[in-house]
């Protein structure tokens, strides 16, 4: 992709552009700086300038958080739930989309066209509009108030997108490679596993990261379909914490928020470029 080169423009010329970009981006930068700063300080002046270094805001890591008589559960089991949720979503979504993407890209079977069209429509169709019916379905198959229930719902709602992305990766693989594999003696499964999958490793990891982050950030389904506190995920936990501490202790909220944000930051830093591309730019962006 060629970068648009503008040779004639000098610094003076582009100054207004940079000033504009800095001004509009500043609040975002400040907000994230605040999150960081206030989690480590006992007091902030003027909103963002930290005063007094403390680790007290991070106390939830080693002790219970109490507010009056109510005590919040420890953050560790909650974190474990979030890992379980995001991990299961990732594994299921990757495996199922790899299988289905292969069928849609490389196989020919009756109903394929219908499945493709449905997939496209569902892709645009927002799952949250179906929350009430999903509640009923989960109750019916006895997966209400269970992390697995949320996992299945989330995987299903993300599958059309993930499958289509994987299909796109498969489509790029030259047919000759598949033919060569058949001539060398592969059967269909060997072809999928030994020849095709290794070609799209970067694509698989991109889909996996995307699935993990989506699962990790998941809020509305956990909030609606999980009632027992032993099933709470970090998103629900934090939502409750915000409800109780909002006007009392931003330091604690910032620390907890930052704790929740860690995997996102890590993945964002290591895969920022590819994530940007697949997230909304399609595969090739």
């Amino acid at each position, binding site marked *: 992709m060629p970068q648009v080169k503008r040779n004639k423009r000098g610094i003076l010329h582009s100054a207004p552009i940079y000033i504009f970009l800095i001004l509009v981006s500043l609040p975002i930068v400040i907000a994230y700086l605040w999150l960081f700063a206030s989690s480590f300080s006992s007091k902030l002046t003027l909103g963002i300038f930290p005063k007094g270094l403390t680790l007290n805001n991070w106390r939830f890591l080693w002790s219970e958080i109490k507010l009056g008589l109510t005590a919040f559960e420890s953050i560790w089991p909650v974190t474990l739930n979030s890992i379980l949720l995001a991990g299961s979503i990732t594994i299921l979504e990757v495996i199922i989309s790899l299988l289905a993407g292969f069928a849609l890209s490389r196989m020919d079977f009756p109903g394929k066209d219908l499945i493709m069209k449905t997939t496209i429509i569902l892709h645009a169709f927002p799952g949250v509009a179906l929350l009430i019916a999903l509640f009923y379905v989960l109750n019916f198959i006895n997966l209400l108030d269970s992390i697995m229930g949320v996992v299945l719902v989330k995987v299903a709602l993300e599958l059309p997108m993930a499958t289509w992305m994987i299909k796109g990766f498969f489509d790029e693989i030259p047919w000759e*490679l598949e033919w060569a594999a*058949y001539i060398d003696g592969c059967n269909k499964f060997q072809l999928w596993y030994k020849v095709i999958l290794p070609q799209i490793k970067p694509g698989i990891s991109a889909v996996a990261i995307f699935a993990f982050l989506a699962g990790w950030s998941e809020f509305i389904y956990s909030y609606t379909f999980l009632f027992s506190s032993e099933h709470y995920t970090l998103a629900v936990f934090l939502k409750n914490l915000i409800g109780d501490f909002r006007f009392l202790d931003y330091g604690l909220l910032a620390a907890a928020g930052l704790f929740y944000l860690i995997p996102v930051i890590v993945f964002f830093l290591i895969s920022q470029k590819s994530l940007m591309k697949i997230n909304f730019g399609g595969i090739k962006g």
Partner: protein
Amino acid sequence: MRVILRDITKKFGTFVAVDNLNLNIHDGEFVALLGPSGCGKSTTLLMLAGIYKPDKGKIIFGNKNVTHELPKDRNVGMCFQNYALYPHMTVFENIAFPLKLRKMPRDIIEKKVNQIARKFHLDSLLNRRPSEISGGQQQRVALARALVKEPKILLLDEPLSNLDSGLRISMRAEIKKLQKDLGITTVFVTHDQTEALSMCDKIAVMNKGTLQDFDTPEKLYSQPKNQFIAEFIGNPPMNFLDVVCIREGDKVYLKGTSFKIELPERAKREFAQIQNGEKVILGIRPENLKLTSEGQNTVKGEIYVVEPLGRDKLVNVKIGTNRIKVIAPQDYNGNMGENVFVRLDMDKIHLFSSEDGNSLRMSA
């Protein structure tokens, strides 16, 4: 192993890619499938490999009908235009892959791969990946992979067209030598008639899904069965002029817009079936034309442009509304716009029906 294609037809939707093809390839023969893009030659090759299944007809390897067999059961080796090497495997793993899938013991695999790698001068590259070696090397890996399982039939799909021109010419000889050494029945798909002429024992010329002719390169060149073959084989291509046949007594003339030439005895016999007044197409190769001064049986024209080729010059001459190419010696110094006379080597002419393009040669 001999290969027989009998009444093979393959359609994609309503498009007929291969139409009722019959081929008889002898054991150890090197055969080219030659034709322009879309002529069905690649489809034919893929049917031989077992990737595509014919809609009609039979494919026989040796004495066995393999029409319904899967690629992996046919024991063919194939080399693709883009080589289709597995990018995630090293050169060694690529070559070893067909053997691994046959569950051969590891030490035998290693022996065989090393052996063939030496033959193809790949010893030092075994740990590299396809992306780390040159195009020519990739091609040798592809050949090694195709041959390591000791197939009975070798299929080559435009194996040379991704190489640069120097390498392509040297690989032509290499592959020809290899095929002769191994004595393996080989089918070679190409759109380049030079490759087909220089490498193969026999050429099947295809156009729009149908077989035009299947014969030796010499025969196809000297006695093309129809105008398509005549035009497709030979470089620079054959010239064509619209003429009318005129019989006056026992003399036969070909009359063009601005010329009238007499047929010699031999040509008269060969083309005896042509009627008086029949419109035919005269074909003559550039090397059978000579620029000369005015005389008997010459055609007057005007130099359109001169293309020096190094060894000789190619002179484009305008004759009426037709344009022909003439090979002239290196020291020829005609200029654009000058009038010239072209003498035809009348023993080397071809005449085609203006209706169906078929050759009007009697014995053909």
